[in-house]
């Protein structure tokens, strides 16, 4: 079965000459469908670069990135945009909702951009919001929502349309602990339904929601865990049945 995300010897260098910054150096990473991978590392270690390269927002200086088996390097700008509309969902730390659009319109945006009619996109958006328990916020603008609500809307936007790759850059950075746990639970749930997820986070207790944790330092992938039991394991018995 094809991995949803595959990075082969990916390097990224910003600038040139003495001012060159090597953000990533020959990173290999594979994320399967249904898997949630957490990326940890100190500031400047290349976590966000990895995410933006995986999400086709930036191009790798060297190496190959495959999303659902398709190499990004061979795609045109329009094709990559189409990939982001149909297969990749982003969640940012600062929510990145368009303040000129209502919550439902923000969620419907990728579908509308992909040519779905406004009415059909709204129906799908309302369904995604309902799935995250925020359907009552549908017609409110972002500045009328709490931080937790905003991030739920952002996640709804990332998952709407059954997209296969979920990329989250510090999705809980602007939230309190209760909302942070809630967001991680939602991401975990999305992966359980078949999406591949990559979450950049600083916090170990949030990384523990992931199936696997990857450590980056100075652009190098220095370590990674095996399949972690996750906090939900505490709620199950040794046989795998709920306690």
């Amino acid at each position, binding site marked *: 079965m094809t991995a949803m995300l595959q990075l082969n010897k990916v390097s990224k260098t910003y600038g040139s000459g003495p001012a060159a910054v090597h953000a990533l150096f020959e990173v290999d990473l594979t994320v399967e469908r249904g898997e949630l991978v957490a990326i940890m590392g100190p500031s400047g270690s290349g976590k*966000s670069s990895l995410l933006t390269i995986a999400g086709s927002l930036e191009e790798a200086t060297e190496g190959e990135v495959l999303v659902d088996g398709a190499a990004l390097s061979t795609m045109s*700008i329009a094709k990559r945009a189409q990939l982001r509309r149909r297969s990749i969902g982003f969640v940012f730390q600062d929510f990145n909702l368009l303040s000129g659009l209502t919550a439902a319109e923000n969620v419907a945006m990728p579908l509308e951009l992909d040519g779905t009619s406004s009415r059909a996109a709204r129906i799908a958006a309302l369904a995604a919001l309902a799935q995250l328990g925020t359907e009552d916020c549908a017609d409110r603008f972002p500045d009328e929502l709490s931080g937790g609500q905003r991030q739920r809307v952002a996640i709804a936007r990332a998952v709407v349309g059954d997209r296969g790759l979920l990329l989250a850059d510090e999705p809980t950075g602007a939230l309190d602990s209760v909302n942070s746990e809630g967001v991680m639970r939602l991401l975990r749930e999305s992966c359980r339904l078949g999406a591949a997820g990559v979450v950049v986070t600083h916090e170990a207790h949030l990384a523990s929601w992931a199936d696997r944790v990857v450590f980056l330092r100075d652009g190098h992938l220095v370590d990674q865990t095996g399949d972690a039991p996750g906090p939900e394991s505490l709620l199950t018995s040794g046989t795998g049945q709920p306690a």
Partner: protein
Amino acid sequence: MFRWAGRMFRREWRQQVLVLCLLTAAVAASVVFATLATNAVPGPTAEFGGANASVRVDGTDPALAAATIAAVQDRFNSVDVIAHRAILVPGTLQHLDVRDSDPNGTYTATVLDLRHGRSPQRAGEVALTDGAANVLDVGIGSDITVDDITWTVVGTVENPKDLSDEFALVAPGTLPSPDSYRLLVDDHDRVPAPPGGSGDTSTPQFGLEVMGSEDTAVAALVLTASTLAMTLVGLIAASGFAVVAQRRQRQLGLLSAIGATTRHVRMAVVSNGVILGVIAAVLGTAAGVGGWLLAAPAVEIAANHRVDRFHLPWVLIAVLALLAIVVATLAAWWPARAASRIPVMTALSGRPPRSRAVRRSLVATAVLIAGGVTGVALSHPTSAHVQPLLLVAGIVGIVIGTVFAAPAAIRVLGALAHRLPFAPRLACRDLARSQARSAAALAAITLALGIAVSVIVIASTNEYSVDEGNLSTHQLLIRVGDPHTDLQPDLTAAEVDQLDARAATVVAALGGDGSSVALDVAFNPSNLDPSMREPISLGARIDDHSIRWIAYPYVQTPELLALYDVDPASIGPSTEVLTQRTDPMVLLDIQKRDGPDAAKARTQAAALPTYSSAPNAIITTATMEQHGWITARAGWIVESPGALTVEQIRAARGAAAVAGLAIEVRSTQDGISQLRWDSTLVGVLLALAIVTMTVGLIRGESRQDLTTLTATGASPRTRRALAASTAIALSVLGILLGTVGAYIALVAAFHSELDSLVPVPFPQLLTLALGLPLLSAIGGWLMARREPATFSRRVLD
């Protein structure tokens, strides 16, 4: 704080270069306006030269004229005498002023300039203005014979104070039989009167015409133009400074966090306004003065007089430059105040605070526009007694009122956006969200377009349309002569045939592609006294006591009816006049004119030409017979299959001169038409610059949104559509508000003659309405071509 603002400006000047350019352009335009207004109005010096008073003397009684001139010369120390004689230009009905004036006179020297050749020095020599030379179709060295006098052209001259003053200058004292004299004097340079007066009652009396002052009108023009330009400057600057404050929000938040007071924060933004204002004032003044020096030759042609390009209103320019700084500073004040009130943490987050709706703007709009309309209406702008201050106050009221409507218009746009496709919906919502800035930009666009629309409409009130005017471009009217003096009702058939044969030579000069029909007018046979006779006229009844003269209707002939496809059988037995007019008309016989028995004429509608000199009214044969009126050959209408060329008109004029006839062709109004199109172009370009700046600033500010869009899969096409939609929305709203505002001001100004605002100049208004959004959309589309470059920066943070 000022030093910090200065350093910030030095670091970030590229981000403000567009605002600076627009401010500089506005200051430059103000300087050019002021200089233009000062220099473009020739004032009464065109007639008075270096004098400040004049005396007009009738020349029909040479002895009395000589005595009057002598009396004037006795009363004033220095008198320049200009003798005039009007001569009929052969082949036309135009008169040319032959002038006897001393090129070196005390007062006349300033209104006479030799351009080429030499001045006439003896009898039989003449110098012509360019226009006179064109009319007479002669050049230096040519001979002209008019009224049995032959002159040799020795030079070309002009009145530098009035280039449209066309005349022929003869050597001093050589003009035979002048019609009139104009004596130029200095009212303050009188000969002291002898004690007790002269006591000579035989001295002819004369009236002194003292030169009036046009200063008030010029001041009003400058004040109005400067007010509008400065309002524009303020709006552009306010829009720009709002963005500057927004961009520096985090830095200003940091200042507050380390203890800066709201006054410090305010000062930082206001200082930026002062710096930008000073730079714009200096650059704008330099550009304005430079622009004036370059444009001066073109201004001479447009203003019809020579201008001294170094005659600049320096005091006014200094005031304008100072005003620019003050306006820029004031424009920075409001964004500064808003920036200083943002909570520190909100400022540090860099997120724009939620904008508040301007709720009182509609009330203020209504009050200001109502006051402005009243002010403009009461200032009598179309009369000679204009009240400048009231006019300026009224215009300012309407302008500010219209500008205040901008936030409401943007709110309405935002509210209606939910039905639009994605890109325009987001664009309209973004405009509504950033109301403070977008409203200022919209106001600037509105003002720019409002000025353009006003100029276009005012120009069109002075221009007739294709189906108006004296004749169409395809028509040529050959006239026998003046209807009062040259028409002869008692010609024999052979004499009429001779006239027709002479007219045929004129038609032949067109190259044989014109068909002509003879035109006769009607006379009352009981009134054929050459000094009194006048053709039967058609008038429009205004009220019970007054009738407005319309035309000399032509007499029905089979050829004339056939020319306009009128079936003779369709003419009713009681119809007196065929015409396309529908208002109450009367047929005027000179002996009954204005009398109560001038009964309403029985008219019948016919598809006749609407042109004033074409056969637009026909007296029926039955009416001629009923009154016993007789006919006189008055002319011939020539209908050409194509528009007459300059060469054809020149050939026809020459043939008419030889045949002793005169021709009339369509009067051109190229200048006014050009002005309308120029205004359209300037309005579009200015509005386009503001739209481009605003779209660039709004889209630049919403970089994060662009990142989100890109991450969500928005294609470059969507990003372009977003920028283009923003530009289109601003343009369309600007056109709507600008046009409505302009028409409000114009209706107030022309309230006593509203029909002069009709017809609406649709070609130019449509060009604005379609051209600006189209160009704006193209500009927005091109501006949004790049991918956002924020991803890599985020990584390096």
